[in-house]
């Protein structure tokens, strides 16, 4: 169990993470999304023990991570900018990881390298960005750690490799109940992989939820009533996150149980009624508006 409690991090005079609270269950794939500079990488670094929290606590299994070798043996952190020792190849990097992680699985390493068609004897510095990332993922998964923290996981990977990585990660979680924490600023990349998601805004998790409820509890509604002069107050029984009326048709984003919402709307005897599913990206944007954030400029 990963727990962040009132977590905060300051650099010089700038607060990057403030009062963050979050709990990530074992065996889940948690996606953390947020704009650039929201504090995703800093949060991961604190969980990985690279940074010490300025305030609050970051714990895994009830123990602080910072300078805790015992916990760190169960953690692998793959940052957004990868580092490999100069003139090393993947076999040598595997040796390095094997010296640090006692459960490092060389057989799995070789198997994954073959699977991803990576040459373990070639110098890493000659590899492309995507190949380096593949190699880093393979090394991480070969450690047989229980917690994987990936920052901008799919950066530089082509679509085929992305799906391959996703399947390997899902397989590892399914087989070993490992916990994966991923960050990205691209929601679409995460929505078919994660089972939980959190939105990080200005160093704070604004909301978190499991993907299924996010998708099933929010809809886009297009409605036209016989009385064309209706307004937002007409739907006061519902939790309307967004409302816009063009002519006689109103478009709303409504949060709640699909059946209950349908019943309420049908009771108004609408001329037109459509309930449309939302993409994860839209869900996040409207959810944020519900918290008072303005995203008009971002909405496409």
């Amino acid at each position: 169990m990963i727990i962040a409690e009132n977590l905060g991090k300051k650099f010089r005079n700038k607060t990057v993470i403030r009062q963050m609270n979050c709990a990530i269950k074992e065996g889940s794939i948690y996606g953390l999304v947020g704009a650039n500079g929201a504090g995703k990488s800093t949060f991961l670094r604190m969980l990985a023990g690279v940074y010490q929290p300025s305030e609050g606590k970051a714990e895994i299994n009830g123990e602080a991570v910072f300078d805790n070798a015992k916990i760190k043996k169960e953690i692998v952190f793959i940052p957004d900018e990868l580092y490999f020792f100069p003139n090393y190849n993947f076999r040598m990097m595997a040796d390095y990881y094997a010296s640090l992680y006692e459960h490092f699985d060389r057989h799995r390493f070789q198997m994954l390298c073959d699977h991803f068609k990576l040459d373990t004897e070639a110098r890493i510095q000659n590899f492309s960005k995507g190949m380096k990332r593949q190699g880093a993922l393979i090394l991480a998964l070969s450690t047989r750690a229980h917690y994987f923290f990936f920052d901008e996981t799919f950066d530089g990977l082509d679509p085929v490799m992305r799906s391959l990585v996703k399947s390997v990660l899902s397989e590892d979680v399914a087989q070993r109940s490992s916990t994966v924490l991923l960050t990205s600023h691209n929601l679409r990349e995460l929505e078919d992989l994660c089972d939980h998601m959190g939105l990080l805004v200005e160093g704070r998790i604004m909301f978190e939820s499991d993907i299924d409820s996010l998708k099933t509890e929010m809809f886009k509604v297009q409605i036209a009533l016989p009385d064309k002069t209706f307004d937002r107050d007409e739907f006061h029984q519902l939790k309307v996150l967004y409302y816009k009326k063009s002519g006689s048709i109103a478009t709303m984003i409504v949060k709640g149980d699909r059946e209950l919402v349908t019943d309420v709307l049908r009771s108004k005897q609408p001329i037109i009624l459509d309930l449309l599913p939302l993409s994860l990206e839209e869900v996040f944007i409207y959810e944020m508006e519900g918290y008072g954030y303005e995203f008009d400029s971002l909405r496409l």
Partner: protein
Amino acid sequence: MSSIRSVFNFKVFWQNFRSAQGLLLVAMIIYQAGILINCFSFSRTPGMTRVVAFSEISGIISLCACFLLPIAACVTLFDFLFSKKKSDLVFSSPIPRKTLYWSNWAGGMIFLLINVLIASLMLHVTLLRNPQLIVENGVVIRFLILWGLSMMMVYSCCCLAVSLTGNRFVQFVLVAVLTLLPGWFHYTFQTQFYNYDQLSQVDYSSQKATETLTNPYSMRIVQDEGKVDTLPYIAFDQLISSLSGMRQSFRVTDYNNHTAFSYSRCWIMLINLLAASALGSWAFIRRKVEVAETSFISEAAHEAVRIAAFVPIFYTLGMKDWVSAVLYAGILLILYHLYDYLARREFISLRRTLISFLAVVAIAALIRFPMRILVRREASRQISIEDVSAVALAPASTLGSRQHEALLQLKLDDPELIRLVFQSNVNSEYTEGSIHMIVRFYQDRGYSDFYVNFAPEQIPQLETRLGANDQYQLLYRSLDPQSVYWIEANGISAGLDKAEVDQLVAQLQQEQQQQNFADLLHETKQIACRQSDESYCFLSLTLVSFENGERTEQNVDLLRYQSVFQLYSSFVNQQFLKTYADNVRFLNFYSMYDNQLEQIRQQTDLDYESFNLRLSQWLNENLPTQLQKAPLSSEEFLSITYYDSQRQSQGAIFIEKNEKWQEFVSSLIQPE
């Protein structure tokens, strides 16, 4: 065992060492190449037996390496602190910070030790291959210990700096500040306390000694009698000594600082090494520097370095007038921005510039003004001539030396001299040809030291007064009988060893009713000087001593004592007999009054070959018996110089002009 493993992890050590091998190898090759070139330069003096000083062995290369190798090692081994990418990999891995620090620390130490070991080995081989090179016992071991410890101490300072700041550039500056600042402080304070203007308004700009005092931070190289000395050496030495509170043991000009060796110095360095390493570990573990400039401590260190580095600049440049102050402030602001740009790739904000600038001014003022108050208070204490019971004088150029201290402890109560010193203060302007002396005024209790400027017209008078004082002359020559190793006579080495010198000293003492040797030399010099005009016989001896590997020479006019001369000539002639062979050729023939043999050779048209042959034969027969006798007076001996072609050196023998000798001389006149 597990506790050791928790501190030192070989895998971590080897991994970091291996990943840093490129730069470390380059640094190693440059250093070893420098030492090798140094070794070749020793070997380029064939046929000349010479004493190799520790300074020659160490050289400028060792000094540069002493700073650069540790910095290179630290920068490469702790590079994860400067690189965000690498810090992610290193700090997220399951290695405790303690292990990370100490493993890298050990890696650097081993690297430095290997370097010094290889350098020592090369030196050792060089010295073994060159029998002409005379070296002190254990000089290579000393090289190993001294430079090994110095490098390791600088490395531990680097580790401390890097743990505090997490910034590569700030680390350089911090190491420079740590090593140079104590030296600067020492010189600054020394300058201030000698710079009293009560007795003399000295123009410091035209004298070498005062240049050193007033420009303590300059990096120029002072060439002095073949020794190379630089102020960083001194500053480095001052770091060690001032931190230890044992500054008095390591006086600046007592020896060539970087060449000096003493075990106490090594202990101090070892203590500093351990302290800096422990403090570095504490900063690394407890203060939790993550990566470049992310913690309060690194911020604080950054500011501290800025202030500490620029206080000396501001202070040294001075605040003489408003124009200068504005100019210096401008320079300082440019330097601030340059520093920040180099350290962080960003320019300092105006607010921070002003705060740092004010801090520098405040600290410079805090140093300067209390000092000025102390100096003025000291200066305002007028010393009247009646209060002075005695004075002691030492040339300013000897400042810091043992000789200087000895001279200042010699109380001279000559009223004329005291009056002369007080008169010198009347004309305090510096003029061409005037000399600086540091004068110690002895009063009832204690004493005060002042710079005194003697005008050219006062110098003859001063010389007369001081010349008449033989004790002063003796101290001025730094005579130290305890360190005599061999004696040279009339410019020719007698090649006496310590036991023989001791025997000679004992003989001298016996003759002079158990006087100590220093008094005896003093007295002998007086006699010799007094009687030299009367062409009295005396022998000029050079006492050669070694102190800390430095060869010093003092000439003493000696020998009116026949038994001493007998013993001396016996030693010398025995040396001759040891080396006497076909390879000896006689060069010159001296007596104190004539060159009788040379005249005879010319008169009789004897060529050198036949003359040498006949002289050799005579010496072969008679020299052993000559050794049994003492010459009756100085007029009754003759010295002959010879050249030993095998050893390529000159020597001398002493011949008694007895009857047999006269016969031999007469026989020379007769044709063969």
